[in-house]
């Protein structure tokens, strides 16, 4: 299977998203923002549609549009009286509508092309995409390395963070932008509609047994890796969209862990 160049690229992309997405997801779950990745996925759709329309590279365009969307979301939250979930809803709708409109205006790429980005694709990951994903992954890991403790405190106890001189709104914006970048990292293999699941489900699985934030994060990342690599392999065998297989595999893992925990608690 890995003798095909396209599969090597897809596998590399899957490894990156499997490891990275749960690292971000831990902070999102702690902040009760599990759906933020979904919102960012919808915004990325506008980026993909725009790329179709103007003929630019989808990954790069989606990255720019999603990061701009992330910053817009934080500005709306901080500056207006709009509630957080309402601001997110506005982005959801705007993102989908923009993506569909731009893609339909573009000539030459129909709904099939859009589907690759919605649910992931094995065959369309280009060498340029792989480099872009690796670059984005390095940025995410570097930012987490530098700001991980601050992000943890903001997620845990924002009021206390203020009394420790942390700029809470800025750190919220950093997390939203990281989420946006992670969404674009997962866009090619898992797809925009399901990438958020790779951020969240491995964390839900890991927290069944973990006793600390760090363990949850690391075990979640390992689970994400296994699900993405396993799911991609299965999707090759089944000839099915990788996003759906990866997410179902992750859900199976969660159900097994939840049952195992219940059994342990009873036994």
């Amino acid at each position: 299977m890995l003798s095909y160049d396209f599969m090597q690229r897809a596998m590399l992309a899957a490894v990156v998203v499997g490891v990275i997405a749960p690292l971000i997801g831990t902070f999102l779950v702690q902040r009760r923002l599990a759906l933020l990745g979904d919102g960012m996925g919808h915004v990325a759709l506008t980026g993909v549609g725009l790329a179709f329309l103007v003929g630019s590279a989808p990954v790069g365009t989606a990255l720019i549009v999603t990061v701009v969307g992330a910053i817009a979301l934080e500005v709306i939250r901080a500056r207006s009286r709009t509630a957080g979930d309402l601001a997110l809803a506005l982005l959801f709708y705007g993102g989908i509508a923009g993506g569909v409109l731009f893609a339909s205006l573009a000539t030459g790429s129909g709904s099939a092309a859009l589907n690759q980005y919605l649910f992931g694709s094995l065959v369309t990951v280009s060498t340029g995409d792989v480099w872009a994903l690796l670059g984005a992954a390095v940025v995410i890991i570097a930012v987490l390395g530098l700001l991980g403790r601050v992000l943890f405190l903001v997620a845990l106890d924002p009021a206390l963070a203020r009394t420790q001189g942390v700029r809470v709104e800025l750190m919220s914006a950093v997390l939203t932008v990281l989420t946006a970048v992670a969404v674009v990292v997962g866009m090619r293999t898992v797809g925009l509609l399901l990438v958020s699941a790779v951020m969240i489900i491995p964390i839900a699985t890991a927290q069944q047994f973990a006793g600390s934030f760090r363990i949850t994060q690391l075990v979640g990342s390992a689970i994400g890796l296994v699900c993405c690599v396993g799911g991609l392999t299965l999707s090759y065998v089944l000839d099915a969209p990788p996003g759906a297989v990866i997410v179902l595999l992750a859900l199976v893992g969660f159900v097994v862990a939840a049952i195992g925990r219940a059994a342990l608690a009873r036994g």
Partner: protein
Amino acid sequence: MPADEAYPVTPCTLQGVTVTLGGVPVLRHLDLAIPDGDFLVVLGANGSGKSTLLRACLGLVPVTTGEVRLFGTQVASFRQWSRIAYAPQQFPDCRAIPVSVSEFIASGQTGPSIVGRRNRAALQHATVALGLWDLRRRAIGELSGGQQRRCLVARALGRMSDLLFLDEPTAGVDEEGQHLLAAVLRSRRDEGGTTVVVTHEHNAVSDLATRCLVVEPTGLRYC
């Protein structure tokens, strides 16, 4: 523990401070100075505004009139937050992701710098002194209310601050825990640290007071 012995600055001052929450004035034209080395105990009935007073000192609630200064600087432009520690009354919601006791206590040591610095000795000292060492690997959500309260205080103590604010540190803490707490705070007081404790009850901690005041609807009354 003043930063500059030659020019000791009052750690916290309130001048003519009024705080209004939801249209209702909670504190009215308060004047208060908390000098260096003070161990101030703030008493008062539930809803008297004790916690609001503390939160106003920290800039967590806006003041309608007057000004709050920390170490001589208006709280809005204050930047030396590493000199301040605060244990809030509310325990944060830790149910979403398991957080271990040691992670929770260490979370107090993320300064304003980009890369959080850690003073492991201070963390360990605070953890041991409050009787939390054996619990350090447990998920904090599994602890009792009194143990969680001690974790809040340990997190603040681990910051080794010049000025420490504790909001109801003894609520739900058993007698043994209260004595542990009192012992730590006594040595802090004797070393010259400035501490403000808000409480609704007299106990081993309030006995440490160098000054004691009661928040009443008419204003502050020293006792």
